[in-house]
C-alpha cells in the first residue's frame, strides 16, 4: 500500500517534469531578450505588433464562427443518431475521425480545385468566400473533438425520454433541440467549443494555403524571423488555451442544475 503510493507519486512527478520542463524552458527563454537579465521585452514587442492584434482578432472571430457551424452540424446529427439510428453510431464515429487521418493539406487542395476563380463556384475569388471556406475547413478539423464532446454530453442525459416528454407537451423538433437537449448538454458543447477554439487559434496549413491573415501563419512567420518573440508568443498561446480550459471548469461548476450531481 505504502510503496504503491510512493510509486504513484513518483510517476506523477515524472509526468509533471515531462510536461512542464519544455514549458519552463520556453518561458525562461522568452524572458532573456535582454542580455544578462530577465525582462518582458519579447512580450512587449509581441503585444506592440499590430499584426499580432490583427491576426489574433481574425482567428478569434473565425473560431467563433467555426464553433457555431460545428455545433449546428454536430448537435442535431449526434442527437438524431442517438435517438433514431443507434446502429449508425459506429459509422458516424468513424466518419468524424477522418479529419485525424486525412491531412488538412488534402482538404485545402480540394477546396482550391473545386472553388478556384475559374470554377463553377468561385468562392476563393473573394475574401469573404475564402473566410467561409476556411471556417468550413476548421469545422472539419474540429469534428472529432466536437462530436465526441457532444456525444458524451448526450450520453449523460436520457435523450429518448426527455424528447418524448417535450413532444407530449407540444414541442416540435426545433424546440426539443433548442430548449431541452442543448441546454442540458451545454457543458459538453462548451468543452467542444474550447477545443475547437484551441485548434483554430493554432491552425497553420488551411490559413496559409488560402492566404488568410490568421494567427497560425503569423506564429510561423514570427518563428522564422525573430529569436525571443516566438517563445513569448508560444507562452501567450498556451495561456489562451489554459484560460479556455479554466473556463470549461468554471462553466460546469456554475451551471446550477448540475451542482448536486457532482
Amino acid at each position: 500500500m505504502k510503496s504503491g503510493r510512493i510509486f504513484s507519486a513518483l510517476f506523477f512527478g515524472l509526468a509533471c517534469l515531462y510536461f512542464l520542463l519544455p514549458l519552463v524552458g520556453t518561458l525562461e527563454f522568452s524572458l532573456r531578450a535582454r542580455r544578462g537579465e530577465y525582462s518582458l521585452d519579447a512580450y512587449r514587442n509581441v503585444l506592440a505588433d499590430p499584426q499580432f492584434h490583427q491576426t489574433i482578432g481574425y482567428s478569434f472571430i473565425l473560431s467563433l464562427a467555426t464553433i457555431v457551424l460545428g455545433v449546428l452540424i454536430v448537435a442535431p446529427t449526434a442527437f438524431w443518431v442517438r435517438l433514431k439510428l443507434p446502429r449508425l453510431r459506429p459509422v458516424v464515429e468513424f466518419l468524424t475521425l477522418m479529419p485525424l487521418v486525412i491531412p488538412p493539406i488534402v482538404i485545402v487542395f480540394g477546396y482550391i480545385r473545386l472553388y478556384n476563380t475559374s470554377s463553377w463556384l468561385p468562392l476563393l475569388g473573394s475574401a469573404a468566400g475564402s473566410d467561409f471556406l476556411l471556417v468550413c475547413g476548421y469545422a472539419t478539423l474540429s469534428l472529432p473533438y466536437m462530436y465526441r464532446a457532444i456525444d458524451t454530453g448526450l450520453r449523460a442525459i436520457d435523450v429518448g425520454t426527455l424528447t418524448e416528454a417535450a413532444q407530449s407537451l407540444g414541442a416540435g423538433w426545433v424546440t426539443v433541440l433548442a430548449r431541452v437537449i442543448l441546454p442540458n448538454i451545454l457543458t459538453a458543447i462548451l468543452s467542444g467549443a474550447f477545443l475547437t477554439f484551441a485548434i483554430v487559434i493554432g491552425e497553420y496549413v488551411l490559413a496559409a494555403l488560402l492566404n488568410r491573415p490568421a494567427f497560425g501563419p503569423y506564429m510561423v512567420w514570427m518563428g522564422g524571423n525573430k529569436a525571443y518573440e516566438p517563445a513569448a508568443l508560444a507562452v501567450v498561446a498556451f495561456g489562451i488555451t489554459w484560460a479556455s480550459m479554466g473556463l470549461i471548469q468554471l462553466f460546469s461548476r456554475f451551471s446550477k442544475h448540475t451542482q448536486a450531481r457532482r
Partner: protein
Amino acid sequence: MSFITLQNIQKSFGATQVVRDFTLGIEKGEFVSLLGPSGCGKTTVLRMMAGFETQTSGTIVLDGQDMGGLPANRRRIGMVFQSYALFPNLTVAENVAFGLKIAGTPRAEAARRVDEMLGMVGLSGFGARYPFQLSGGQQQRVALARAIAPRPRVLLLDEPLSALDAKIRISLRSEIRAIQRELGITTLFVTHDQEEAMSMSDRVVVMSGGRAEQVGAPSEIYNRPATRFVAEFIGSLNLVPGTVRDAATGAIETPAGVIALGRTLPQANGSAVSLAIRPEGLHIGQDGNVVLNARVADSEFLGSIIRLRVMAGGNTPLVIARFNREGHTVPEPGQELTVSANASDIIVLDGVA
C-alpha cells in the same frame, strides 16, 4: 362511439408481433388500466396512443379525430413516464410551465396555472427548486402537474409508480386517482402491478402476448376471469383438474370426488377442464353447496388472515384463506375438517391446469 377508440390495432417490430388485434373503447373521464406481465404489449399500446410508435395496422380515434399521421406534439395528450423525465435544466415551475409556454399561454395566466397545478400536487412553494433537489415521489408529482397543466385531452401514465418505494407508491396511487376524478380527465394507465390496476381503475384491460384477454371492472376481472391467463395472473387461485361427466347438470369428476355445480356447462361431456376457486371462496364447515373432506397440511397465521393448506379428498391440494376473528382457533396440521364452497364461486376453465 367512445371518446377514444382503438380499433383492430396490430403492431410488429420486424418479425415480432407485439400487439395483436387490439380493440378498446374508452369513455370520457374514465380511468382505464392496461395490466399484464412485461412484454405483453401494454406499453406499446400506450406509446401508439401518444404518437411515439405507429401501428402497423388499425386506427386510433380520439374525440372523433383520427390520430393516424398526427405527430405526438400535435395530439394534445399528456404523458407521465416511469423515469419522471423532468427537464433537469429547468426549475419545477419552469417544468410545469413548459407546455403552457409552447401553447402560447400569456405569462400571467401561465404563472397562475403553474401555481394551481403545484398546489394540486401538494408542492406549493417548490417552484424555484431544481428537479435534483426533490425526492422521487416529489419529482413524479411535478411530472404529473407538468403533464396536466396544458389541459391535455387524455393523460397517459406509463408505470409512473414503479420507481418509487412501497409507501410512497401507495399514497401517490390514491392521490393520482383523486386528482383524476377531480379533473375528470380520461386516463390510460400502464402497470404490471395488479394491486395498482385493481385499486385505481374504473376498468382494467388484462393483456397477454399482445392481446386483450379481458376488459372489465376490477371486481369482474377478479371474480369472473374470462380466460385461464386472467384467472392465473390475477390474485391467487386453486386449480383442480377434472373431466366433465354431465354438462347439463354441471357434474365434474375430480380427484377429490364428483362435484356438482348445478348449472349447465358449455363444455362437452368428457372434455378436460380445470376448476378454479379463490382461497377466500373456500370455507371451513358445511356452509356451501359443494362439500369436501380434507386434512390440514399446514397453516400460516398472517395477522388479519389465516392461510391453510389442505389436502382434499386425499390428494388434491387447496389453499384456504379466512379472516382471523376472536374465538377462532388455528387448525393444527393433521386435523380432519370439512371444506365447502358455493358452486357459483367455482369457475370452470377449459383444459387441464
